[in-house]
C-alpha cells in the first residue's frame, strides 16, 4: 500500500515547515485552521462594521446625500452578506475547529485535509464576493438577492454574479466542514464519552453541522440557478420570460431559516459552557437544553414562509407558518430558563466572558420576543421589511450570536494563546458594546413601528424619523469604540502577558485538562471519560458523593496514568502530515469559478490547478512514513 503511493512523483516537496507563512499554507492542524478562521472572520467583521458605520452615517440625518443610493445599496448588501457568511458562520467555525477535538479528547478532526480545504474555499469565496469593491461594481441586490431585481435585466453589473459565485464556493466550504464535524463527533470521541456525556458546545456543533449539510445544498441549487440566469439567460427566476421570482424566495428562505439556527446554535453552545463554569454548577437541565436544540433545528425547517407573509400565501398557509413559528418559542424559552436556573444558587464570577454570556441571554430574549410578534402574520404585515425587523434580527444576531462569540473569545483565549485577556479592559469592552448595541438597535423598534422601511438610502424630514436615527447612529459610534477597545485589549494583553496555565477558570471540560496553548498533538494520552464534565469531577471527586447513582472514582487513579505517559512526551504520536493540495484545490475552484466572469482561459487555468490539487491529494497518503520506520 505505502510503496505504491510513494511511487507517485511529486513536483513540490511535502511541506514540513513548522513556522512562517509556509507552515500556515500547508497546515492541516485543526487548531491552526481554527486560528485562520478566527482571524479571517474578525477582519471581515471589521469590514462589515465599517460598512455598517457608513450606512448609519448616511441615515443619521434626513435627506442626507453623504452616500449615493447606488453605493448605499452596495453597502447594505455587503454588510448583510459579510456579517452572515463571512463573520458569524466562520467565527463559529473557528470555535468548532479549535474546540471540538479538544472537547471530545481527539488529536484532530476526522478529515484534516478536507478541513484545510474548507478554510481556503471560505477565504477565496469571500474574496470573490468582495471583488466589486475594486471594480466599483459591488453586489447591490440585497443579501437575500430577490429575483427579478437581482437578475440581469434589472441589474446588469457584475456584482450579483460574483455574489452568486462566491456564495456557492462558501457553500461548498460549509458542507465540507459540516460533514467533517459530524464524522469527527460521531467517530472520534474519547473512550467512555457517550453522546450524553458530550459538552453542550459539542452537541450544538453537531446539530449545526447537520443543519449545514442539509440546508446549504438548497441555497447551492438556487445560487447556481440564479447564476445561470445571469450568465447564460436561463429562466429559473427571470419573470420576464415566465420564471417564478417567488420560487427564489421559497428556496432562499428554505435555506435561510435553518441558516438562522446555524448562526445561533453555536452561540447557545458557547453560553452553555461559560455559564456553568462561572456559576461553578453543572448546566441545569442538560438533556432539556440538548433536546430543545434538536427541536429548534427540526422546527427550523417548517417556518421558512414567515419571511414571506406579505407574498400572498393565502390564509391557510399563513396560519400554518404562523403557528409553526410561534412553536419555536417553546424550546427557545426552555433554554433561556435553564440557563437562568444554572445561575441560580451558583457562585457567579462576574468577569468579561460571564457578562457577555449573561448579556447574550438578556439580548437574545428581546430578539425572541419580537420574533413572536413577527410570527403573528397580521401584525407582521405592518412590521415586515421595516426597521422593526432590523432591530429584531440584530438583537438575535448581534445581541445573541456575537455577544456569545465575544464571550467565547474571552473564555477560550487563554486556552488558545496561553495568556489571559486583561479583564478590566474586557469589562470596558463589554460595557461599551452593550451600551452602543442597545442605543443603536433599540430605537429601531420604534422606527419600524413608525413606518420606516428597510433598505432605504434616505427619508424626508416630514416622515419624522430623524431623532431616533441620529440616536441609532450615535449608538453605532459607541459600539465601534467598543470594538476598537477590544483590539487595544488584545494588543495590551499580548504585550503584557499574564500566563494562564492549563485551567485558569476552574472549568469543566476536557480542553482545560491540557496545557495552554495545547501541544500540536493535543492529548498525550487519549483521556478516558466516565462522567459528563469529567474534568470537573477529576478535580472535585468529593462532589460526586452528592450525585445519585455515581460512585466516586478511586482517588489517585489519574495520577498513575499521568506518570505513565510523561515518558511519552508526545513523541511517536502520529498526526496527519501537512499538505499543499487543499489550498491548491481551493484556489483552482475559486479561479475556475471566477473565470466565469473573467474569461474562458481563466477557467482552464483554474480547472488544471483544481484537478492537480484533487488528484495530487487523492494520491498523497495522510502520513508519510517516518524515515526511521522505513529504514
Amino acid at each position: 500500500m505505502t510503496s505504491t503511493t510513494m511511487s507517485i512523483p511529486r513536483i513540490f516537496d511535502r511541506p514540513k515547515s513548522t513556522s512562517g507563512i509556509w507552515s500556515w499554507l500547508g497546515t492541516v492542524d485543526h487548531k491552526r485552521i481554527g486560528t485562520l478562521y478566527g482571524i479571517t472572520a474578525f477582519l471581515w467583521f471589521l469590514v462589515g462594521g465599517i460598512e455598517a458605520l457608513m450606512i448609519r452615517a448616511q441615515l443619521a440625518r434626513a435627506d442626507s446625500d453623504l452616500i449615493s443610493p447606488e453605493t448605499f445599496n452596495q453597502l447594505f448588501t455587503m454588510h448583510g452578506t459579510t456579517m452572515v457568511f463571512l463573520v458569524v458562520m466562520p467565527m463559529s467555525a473557528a470555535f468548532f475547529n479549535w474546540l471540538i477535538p479538544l472537547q471530545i479528547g481527539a488529536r484532530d478532526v476526522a478529515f484534516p485535509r478536507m478541513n484545510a480545504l474548507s478554510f481556503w474555499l471560505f477565504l477565496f469565496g469571500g474574496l470573490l464576493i468582495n471583488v466589486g469593491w475594486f471594480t466599483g461594481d459591488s453586489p447591490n441586490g440585497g443579501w437575500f438577492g430577490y429575483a427579478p431585481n437581482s437578475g440581469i435585466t434589472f441589474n446588469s453589473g457584475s456584482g450579483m454574479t460574483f455574489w452568486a459565485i462566491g456564495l456557492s464556493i462558501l457553500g461548498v466550504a460549509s458542507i465540507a466542514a459540516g460533514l467533517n464535524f459530524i464524522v469527527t463527533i460521531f467517530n472520534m470521541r474519547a473512550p467512555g464519552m457517550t453522546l450524553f456525556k458530550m459538552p453542550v458546545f459539542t452537541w450544538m456543533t453537531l446539530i449545526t453541522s447537520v443543519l449545514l449539510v442539509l440546508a446549504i445544498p438548497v441555497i447551492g441549487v438556487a445560487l447556481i440557478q440564479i447564476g445561470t440566469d445571469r450568465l447564460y439567460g436561463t429562466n429559473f427566476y427571470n419573470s420576464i420570460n415566465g420564471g417564478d421570482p417567488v420560487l427564489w424566495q421559497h428556496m432562499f428562505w428554505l435555506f435561510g431559516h435553518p441558516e438562522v439556527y446555524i448562526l445561533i446554535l453555536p452561540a447557545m453552545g458557547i453560553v452553555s459552557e461559560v455559564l456553568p463554569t462561572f456559576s461553578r454548577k453543572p448546566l441545569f437541565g442538560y438533556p432539556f437544553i440538548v433536546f430543545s436544540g434538536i427541536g429548534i433545528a427540526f422546527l427550523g425547517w417548517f417556518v421558512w414562509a414567515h419571511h414571506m407573509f406579505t407574498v400572498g400565501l393565502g390564509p391557510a398557509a399563513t396560519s400554518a407558518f404562523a403557528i409553526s413559528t410561534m412553536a419555536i418559542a417553546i424550546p427557545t424559552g426552555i433554554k433561556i430558563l435553564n440557563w437562568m436556573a444554572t445561575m441560580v444558587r451558583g457562585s457567579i464570577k462576574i468577569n468579561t466572558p460571564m457578562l457577555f454570556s449573561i448579556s447574550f441571554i438578556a439580548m437574545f430574549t428581546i430578539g425572541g420576543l419580537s420574533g413572536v410578534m413577527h410570527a403573528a402574520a397580521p401584525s407582521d404585515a405592518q412590521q415586515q421589511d421595516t426597521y422593526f425587523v432590523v432591530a429584531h434580527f440584530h438583537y438575535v444576531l448581534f445581541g445573541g450570536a456575537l455577544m456569545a462569540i465575544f464571550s467565547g473569545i474571552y473564555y477560550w483565549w487563554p486556552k488558545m494563546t496561553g495568556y489571559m485577556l486583561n479583564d478590566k479592559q474586557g469589562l470596558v469592552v463589554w460595557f461599551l458594546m452593550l451600551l452602543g448595541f442597545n442605543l443603536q438597535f433599540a430605537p429601531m423598534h420604534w422606527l419600524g413601528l413608525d413606518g420606516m422601511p428597510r433598505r432605504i438610502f434616505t427619508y424626508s424630514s416630514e416622515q419624522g424619523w430623524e431623532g431616533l436615527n441620529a440616536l441609532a447612529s450615535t449608538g453605532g459610534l459607541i459600539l465601534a469604540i467598543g470594538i476598537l477597545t477590544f483590539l487595544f485589549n488584545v494588543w495590551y494583553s499580548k504585550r503584557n502577558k499574564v500566563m494562564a496555565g492549563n485551567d485558569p477558570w476552574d472549568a469543566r471540560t476536557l480542553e482545560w485538562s491540557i496545557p495552554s496553548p495545547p501541544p500540536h498533538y493535543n492529548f498525550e494520552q487519549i483521556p478516558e471519560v466516565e462522567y459528563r464534565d469529567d474534568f470537573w469531577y477529576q478535580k472535585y471527586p468529593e462532589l460526586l458523593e452528592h450525585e445519585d447513582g455515581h460512585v466516586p472514582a478511586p482517588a489517585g487513579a489519574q495520577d498513575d496514568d499521568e506518570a505513565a505517559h510523561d515518558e511519552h512526551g508526545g513523541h511517536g504520536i502520529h498526526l496527519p502530515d501537512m499538505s499543499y493540495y487543499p489550498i491548491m484545490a481551493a484556489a483552482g475552484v475559486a479561479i475556475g469559478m471566477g473565470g466565469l466572469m473573467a474569461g474562458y482561459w481563466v477557467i482552464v487555468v483554474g480547472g488544471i490547478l483544481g484537478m492537480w490539487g484533487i488528484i495530487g491529494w487523492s494520491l498523497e497518503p495522510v502520513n508519510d512514513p517516518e524515515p526511521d520506520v522505513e529504514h
Partner: protein
Amino acid sequence: MLSNLLPRLPRRKLLLFLVPAAAAFIAGCSTGNPQDTFDTAGPVADDQAALFKFIFWIALVVFVIVEFGIIWITLKYRRRSDSDPMPVQTHGNTKLELTWTFIPTLIIIAIAIPTVISIWDLSDPPAGESVMTIEAVGHQWWFEFKYPEEEIVTANELRVPVGQNVVVKLSSQDVIHSFWVPKLFGKVDMIPIRENELWFRADEPGEFFGQCAEFCGIAHALMRFRVIAEPVEDYNAWVAGMRKPPVAVSGGAANGQTLFAANCSSCHSIDSYQAGAFDREEALQDGRWQGWLADIEDARIVSAPNLTHFGTRLTFAAGIRDLDRATLIDWIDDPSSIKPGTRMQEHAAVYQTSDGTANLRDSEIADIADYLLALVPGDADIAPTATPANGGGGGDPVAFGQATFAANCSACHNTTSATLVGPGLAGIADRAGSQVPGLSADDYIRQSINEPTAFVVDGFGPVMPGFPQFGDDEVDGLIAYLKTLN
C-alpha cells in the same frame, strides 16, 4: 466590583416605575408621524395594531420576568470572594422543566388563537358590504392606479371615498414591490406574473402616506405614494372631472403643450379622460415596457406615470415632493437631482445632453411646467373624440392626416425610421403594398388602423389599440399623410 455599583431598587418602587414605563412605551409608539402604524384610520390597520398590542403586553410580562430575573440572579448569587463555598451541584428538576414547557405552550396558544382568527378575518372584506375595485401596478419607481369601473388611470395618488371598502388588485410590471399605507393597511407584495389582492377602508378623510416596502432597486427609497380619502361627494366630483377634457390653455402654457407633445408625450399620457383611453393606456404602457426591454441601454422610451389632470395632484415624482411650480421646474430640468436613478432622465431623448439636464431653454421648461399645472378638468361635460383642431375632411387630407397622426399616433410611432413603441413609419408607402399578399398599400394601412392585430410586423408585440372613434375621414387622411413619409 462592578456589581456593587449597581443600585438596589426596592421591589415595590420597581413596580411603580415599570407600569408607567410600559404605558409610556405604548404611548411613545404613537408618534402621529405620517407612517405611524398605531395612528390607524381604518379597520385593517386597527386590527393589525390591536394584535400587536395584545402580544406586546404578554411579551412585556415575559420581558420583565426574564430581564429583571437575570439581573437579580446575577447580583444575588455573585461570588463575593474566591473562598465562597462550592454551590450545591444541581443537575436539573423534571417538575420545573415540565412547568416551564407547559406555561410557554399555553402562552403561545393564547397568542396563536387571535392570530389565526385575525388572519382569516382580514383576508377578505366584510361579507355583504359593497366593494369597489382598484388595480395598482408597481413600476420602477412609481405606482400606477387604475379604476376599471370608472375607466380612470392615474399615478402615485389613490383617491378613495371615506367609508368605502376597497379591494386593490396588485401586480407589477418589472420587479417585486410592496404596497403599504401604514395608517390604513399592512403591506402586500406586488409581484410580476402573479396577482395579489388586499382590501382596506379609510374610516376618516385624510391624506395617508404610502411607501414601497420591498427593495426594488436604486430609487426604492423614493417610491412613495398617497392615499387621499375624501367624502363621497368630493370623490364623485373628482371622478367626474377625470372624464372631462382639460381647460384650454394659451400663452406660455400653449407653448408648453407643444413642447410636451414633442418631448414628453411618447411616455406620458395626458388624455386618459377620453372614451376608450383606459384600454389604450394599458396597451401603451405595455408597449413602452416592451420598448425599454428590447434595448435597455439605449431605449428612448420607458413606461411612465399617466399625467392626465396632473394639475389636480398634491404631490409628484412618486409622492416625494409637494406639487409646486418651482419644484416642478427643477424636476423637468434635472430629475435625478430630486430622484436619483429615475428612468426618465436616462432614456428620454431630451435629456441626452453632456450634463444630462433637459435640452430646453429655461423659459421652455417653465412653459412645460405651466402647461402641466394647467392640466385640470374643464367645463365640457362629454369627452370629445380626438378630432384635430383644423376640422373634418373638407380641407387638405394630408394636413388633416398629419394633425390626426400628431394627436393619436405619435406617442408610439416616429415619422423617421426610428422605433418607439411601434415601428418608425418613414417609407411606409413603399413597403405597405408588399407586407400582406393581396392587400394594396392603402388597404394594408387601412387594415392596420382599423384592425391593428390582424397583421403584426415581425419584432413587435400585438399592443396597438383600436381607434373606434375614427371615421373614414380620419383614416383616409392618415393614409394620405403616411404615404408622404420618406
